[in-house]
């Protein structure tokens, strides 16, 4: 083979490699487009972030309430036993009330976990799309939730839900 023929063969090979790279990039772009989920970015991730913020605020507030109740008990004058007993009772009630944060934060964490699972499934789809192990399935349209299930949203974020006073008016 002459050196010209060898160069031509090398150029052909390089050209073919370039074409393959471009094809791969185009396929990658197409697959990424299919995996793009605006709802995840615009709804679920910001919501998860706000849920975590609400968890921090609520745990801080509950801790503060519990410590205040304990401090009130420590500061009691025990020379008046009846009054002290009443104050201890009231402080215990405040501690019980404050402990309800665990239920609410538990529900918020469950919502954050759902978002993490969604992210995990997207990453898995992404890996599958590029590994060639499996083709990306067409996007499944989410089934509309049953009307009762649609009422299960967990704790509202600040400014979202209604207050007890509003509920009381409905039941008045």
């Amino acid at each position, binding site marked *: 083979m002459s050196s010209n023929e060898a160069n031509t063969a090398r150029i052909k090979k390089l050209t073919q490699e370039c074409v393959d790279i471009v094809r791969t990039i185009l396929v990658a772009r197409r697959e990424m487009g299919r995996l793009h989920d605006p709802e995840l970015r615009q709804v679920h991730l910001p919501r998860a972030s706000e849920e975590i913020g609400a968890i921090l605020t609520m745990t801080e507030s509950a801790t503060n309430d519990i410590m205040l109740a304990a401090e009130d008990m420590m500061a009691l004058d025990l020379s008046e036993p009846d009054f002290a007993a009443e104050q201890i*009772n009231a402080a*215990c*009630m405040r501690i*019980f*009330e404050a*402990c*309800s*944060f*665990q*239920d*609410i934060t*538990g*529900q918020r964490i469950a919502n954050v976990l759902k978002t993490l699972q969604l992210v995990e499934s997207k990453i898995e789809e992404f890996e599958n799309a590029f590994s060639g192990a499996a083709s990306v399935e067409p996007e499944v349209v989410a089934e509309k939730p049953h009307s*009762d299930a649609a*009422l*299960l*949203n*967990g*704790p*509202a974020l600040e400014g*979202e*839900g*209604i*207050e*007890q006073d*509003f*509920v009381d008016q*409905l*039941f008045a």
Partner: protein
Amino acid sequence: MAVQMNMPILIVDDYRTMLRIIRNLLSKLGFTDIDEAPDGETALAMLKSRDYGLVISDWNMQPMTGFELLKVVRADAVLKTMPFIMVTAESKVENVQAARQAGVNNYIIKPFSAAVLKAKLKAVLGEF
């Protein structure tokens, strides 16, 4: 009629901490006979085996939610007049309206205070 402080009360919640909180608050208010259930299905079986005077239930539970429990109770010939209070973190208007339509006697949004619980108990059961 005066409220019987020894009437059996069933509290339903899938969070043990919340069951404990409500139990303690009810005890502090003077109620002496309190049972617990971790979900609607267990609660329903308990309601059919004992004559309770009040149900205080969470909404969001599996396998049977508090809302489903409420609807089953209201559809049951024996249980339909059972006083039923929903205590839940679900605080959307549509939740309150749906519960009201299903026949709930009162609705408490979590987190709640002992004073709110007492006021709702009075509203449903009468003065005590």
